[in-house]
């Protein structure tokens, strides 16, 4: 059998294999190139030449004219020199291309493009076409800046900027895209996106907050050198802000809503989710088995029992409406059941409203008593008048009171009665004012308590600027309270100093008013003895000590004491008291007019949204450096959530995409490869049908073309030789098929997605075997001619060259064979 390899026809075969592979490769590559060229021209027709345009718009056909005018106007104003081109119209929209001069290909311009083209009629947005360009998508927004900074460090990167939810990377004109792409892959590979999914039953109150806490916890541990919480980072900043606001709003509402504490009756087991009914009409208490009415107050239990009590939320009615703290369980058919608990309510909302009302009222009164210094002055003036009158009584302060003194004092007191009364009245007013100040201080302290308890919304913008107002109000109130306290003290001092004098004088006045007459009568009756008068003077509280005290009264010192009071109230007038009253009124009017029911329902709704949105699928997303210790981080996370059910998945942080043209080119290259591969396969089939068929068919007659050199060997070596002769044709067919297809595919640059060279090698071998198996069905050899040839002593080569190949189908083999034929 080996003799066949000595045949010259083997050389013919080798030449054919090489030449057919070469020609087929050229043909296949040519077909691919033709397709490539066609597609490239088509793309160029659609998109312009490489780098020609930067922006691609789709404009509604009906607004095309207006839009084009606007485009021209924008170009003239912002981008003079830019090129505008109108493309084809498809499905009611016209494509518009804008090419920017090189000087505008800057980060500043590209960042502002959205602003420039924000109001083009009939066009919502544009697509970036600048080339060469790469895009990284899927990067969480909160770390985009970080990526942009890193990307811009890569050589050949002109600049990078945020383009919607992606990062657009504009490359230098001569940039090697593959090289830049590789660098970008390196950057992406240095980070990971860690997705932490909770078990379905796991409840995370605020996923954003949990993410922040968790990222703080992981920072610096387990090889984590960089970490950012990007939970819901897939969404926009606005969306995240909304979620944050909603979480804060929930916090505010929870602190604002009526707090309900449920004390279950001993032996009764209540669960979160149970609803309790409470009566709102004292005259008609709830009864067992009655349907729940709209006026009843319903409380939903929100927490498990802890230390004998549970927390709840009012889902119908308001805490102020509760008339009876006995709560009945709402059972089937929405009816009231047994009394199962008692309710304690505390409504910060009610308390806040009340304290605001009172504070405003009191402060207005404080504001109205700004004439306190003049009242105090009047007191002082009256005291001076009285003192001057007293000093006119000679020897008032010396010796014991005698009748003359008493008479004169009585007359004097009667004469200064008006001043004395004014003085008393003014002191009474001052005392009232002092009381009001004390009450105002109490009220302000109440308001201050609310401003300090975090009731105010931190996020301004919600409920107008209520949050900010309350915060600044709190600061104002603190100052005011201190101010009022010092004023109240001054007032108190003043009152305390005048009060004893006024009390003495009034007592005297009362005693002397009509007593003078009576004393005369007594004097006449007793014979005018002074001892009796002493007794009377003692009786009305007038003694030598008090007379001396009166004479020596330090009115100038009192007047000095009045100065700080006067100036103090003057300063009070200059404070922000009026402003604070106004602010309190604004806060009062701005407070949400919400019932507990509305708050409860809103909280439920917020919970639903936050539950679904923040942790869609109950997950957190953390952005961190690659190369962290997976084991340690997993352990920390599981420990944080105190659950082994938490699933942690490490994902690549983003994906790199080439620009549209590159993407299309890549796709078209694949198409070109597939077209080339299909051409190769077709040519391969043709090569087998036309050229290899006679050879393969002849292999079915191996006895004839390669008889055993020693027929007797067959008897001696039997099975081995038989197997060899049986296998040889299959081997040849498989080898020729495998080599041919593999080499042609390789040389032509053909490719089929997901198929490697080895796959083609195998496919070629398989095809060869199939061909060998069926060759005689489509290529009948004329064995008579073959026999004749052999009978004439022809070799295998001669038979092939002179008989079989010429008799076969026209092809490369026949073409090559022709020059070797004796009789052409």
């Amino acid at each position, binding site marked *: 059998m080996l003799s066949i390899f000595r045949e010259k026809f083997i050389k013919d075969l080798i030449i054919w294999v090489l030449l057919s592979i070469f020609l087929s490769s050229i043909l296949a590559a040519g077909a691919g190139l033709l397709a490539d060229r066609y597609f490239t021209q088509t793309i160029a027709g659609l998109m312009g030449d490489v780098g020609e345009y930067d922006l691609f718009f789709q404009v509604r056909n009906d607004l095309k004219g207006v839009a084009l005018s606007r485009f021209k106007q924008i170009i003239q104003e912002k981008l003079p020199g830019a090129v505008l081109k109108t493309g084809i119209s498809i499905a009611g929209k016209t494509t518009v291309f804008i090419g920017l001069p090189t000087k505008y290909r800057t980060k500043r311009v590209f960042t502002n493009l959205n602003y420039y083209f924000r109001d083009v009629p009939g066009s919502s947005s544009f697509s970036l076409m600048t080339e060469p360009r790469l895009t990284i998508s899927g990067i969480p927004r909160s770390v985009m800046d970080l990526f942009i900074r890193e990307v811009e460090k890569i050589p050949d990167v002109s600049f990078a900027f945020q383009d919607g939810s992606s990062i657009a990377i504009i490359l230098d004109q001569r940039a090697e895209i593959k090289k830049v792409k590789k660098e970008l892959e390196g950057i992406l590979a240095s980070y990971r996106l860690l997705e932490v999914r909770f078990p379905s039953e796991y409840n995370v109150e605020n996923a954003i907050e949990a993410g922040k806490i968790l990222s703080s916890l992981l920072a610096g541990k387990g090889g984590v050198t960089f970490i950012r919480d990007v939970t819901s980072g897939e969404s926009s900043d606005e969306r995240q802000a909304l979620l944050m606001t909603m979480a804060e709003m929930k916090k505010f509402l929870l602190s604002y809503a009526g707090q309900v504490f449920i004390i279950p009756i001993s032996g009764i087991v209540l669960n979160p989710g149970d609803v309790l009914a409470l009566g709102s009409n004292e005259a008609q208490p709830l009864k067992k088995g009655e349907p729940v009415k709209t006026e009843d107050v319903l409380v939903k239990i929100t927490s498990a029992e802890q230390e004998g009590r549970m927390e709840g939320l009012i889902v119908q009615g308001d805490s102020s409406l509760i008339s009876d703290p006995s709560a009945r369980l709402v059972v089937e058919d929405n009816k009231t059941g047994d009394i199962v608990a008692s309710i304690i309510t505390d409504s910060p909302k009610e308390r806040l409203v009340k304290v605001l009302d009172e504070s405003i009222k009191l402060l207005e009164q404080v504001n109205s008593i700004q004439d306190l210094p003049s009242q105090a002055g009047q007191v002082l003036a009256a005291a001076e008048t009285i003192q001057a009158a007293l000093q006119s009584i000679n020897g008032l302060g010396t010796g014991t009171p005698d009748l003359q003194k008493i008479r004169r004092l009585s007359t004097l007191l009667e004469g200064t009665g008006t001043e004395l009364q004014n003085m008393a009245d003014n002191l009474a007013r001052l005392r009232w004012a002092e009381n009001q100040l004390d009450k105002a201080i109490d009220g302000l302290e109440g308001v201050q308590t609310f401003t300090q308890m975090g009731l105010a919304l931190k996020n301004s913008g919600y409920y107008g600027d209520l949050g900010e107002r309350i915060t600044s109000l709190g600061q104002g109130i603190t100052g005011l309270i201190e101010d009022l306290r010092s004023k109240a003290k001054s007032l108190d001092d003043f009152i305390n100093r005048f009060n004893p004098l006024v009390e003495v004088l009034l007592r005297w006045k009362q005693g002397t008013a009509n007593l003078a007459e009576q004393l005369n009568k007594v004097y006449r009756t007793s014979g005018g003895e002074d001892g009796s008068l002493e007794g009377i003077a003692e009786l009305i509280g007038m003694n030598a000590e008090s007379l001396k005290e009166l004479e020596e009264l330090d009115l100038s010192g009192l007047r000095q004491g009045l100065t700080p009071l006067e100036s103090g109230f003057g300063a009070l007038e200059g404070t922000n008291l009026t402003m604070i009253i106004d602010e309190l009124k604004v806060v009062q009017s701005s407070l949400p007019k919400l019932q507990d029911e509305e708050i409860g329902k809103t909280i439920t709704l917020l919970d639903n949204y936050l539950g679904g949105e923040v942790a869609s699928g109950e997950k957190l997303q953390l952005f961190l450096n690659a190369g962290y210790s997976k084991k340690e981080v997993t352990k920390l996370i599981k420990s944080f959530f105190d659950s082994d059910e938490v699933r942690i998945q490490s994902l690549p942080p983003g994906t790199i995409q080439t620009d549209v043209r590159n993407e299309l080119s890549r796709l078209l290259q694949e198409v070109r490869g597939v077209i080339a591969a299909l051409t190769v396969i077709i040519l391969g089939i043709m090569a087998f049908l036309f050229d290899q068929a006679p050879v393969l068919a002849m292999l079915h007659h191996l006895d004839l073309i390669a008889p*055993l050199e020693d027929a*007797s060997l067959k008897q001696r070596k039997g099975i081995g030789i038989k197997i060899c002769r049986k296998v040889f044709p299959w081997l040849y067919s498989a080898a020729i098929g495998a080599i041919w297809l593999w080499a042609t595919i390789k040389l032509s640059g053909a490719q089929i997605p997901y198929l490697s060279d080895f796959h083609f090698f195998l496919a070629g071998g398989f095809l060869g075997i199939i061909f060998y198996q069926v060759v005689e069905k489509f290529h009948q050899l004329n064995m008579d001619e073959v026999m004749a040839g052999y009978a004439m002593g022809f070799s295998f080569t001669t038979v092939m060259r002179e008989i079989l190949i010429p008799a076969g189908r026209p092809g490369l083999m026949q073409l090559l064979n022709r020059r070797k034929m004796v009789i052409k």
Partner: protein
Amino acid sequence: MNTEKREPLLKIEGLGKRYHRRMVLNKINLNLYAGETIIIMGPSGCGKSTLVRCINRLTEPDEGRIFFDGVDVTGISMAKLAEMRKKIGFVFQQFNLIRRLNVLENVTFALRVYGLSKDEAEEKGITALSRVGMAERVSSYPAELSGGEQQRVGIARALVLKPRLMLWDEPTAALDPILVGEVLDIMEDLVREKETTMLVVTHEVGFARRAADRIILLDHGNIVEEGTPEKIFTEPRSEIGEKYKKLLKN
């Protein structure tokens, strides 16, 4: 013809051939001497064609040895086999002409392949064709010839190489009875002229009686009788011989 003292041109020893499990030739022994004409006869399927094809190894024998001119045909290389085949002319039952070649090309084909110039080859070709009466049809293609004519071209093709041995595999079996005669006439001429040694497989009893030096009767792969035509057709010893005797009488 005295064959006892000479070396046979063709010597077959214990030739055996099986097709699958069926024994087609069973240890055939045969000697053929130069100038001798042996006619092999027997019923269809008895192994006659296989025997002649085994001689030039168009069919591979399973056992036994074949000596041609003293050389063991079963133990030679492909090249030597090809050389040997040049010395053995073969006339096929189905003529086996090359369809793409005309009459002259068919006849000169081997000469040309073996290096003769076109002119020389054609000269010899025309001589061979003249001998079989086909010189007028040199330009015709096989498809344009009758069966008899094709066979005569086939004979010319074999003769042109001047073979030492000519093997005839039922040369008239595919011919219309009317055309058989023209082929048999040529064959008888060749026998008469003793130009070559011939081993003929045929059913033509008359031709066998007239032309054969010896007749070998084959049945089921075995030689059942061998002898001169007179002996076979007058005193047959085998059943087959009896049948041929009766056939000849009729």
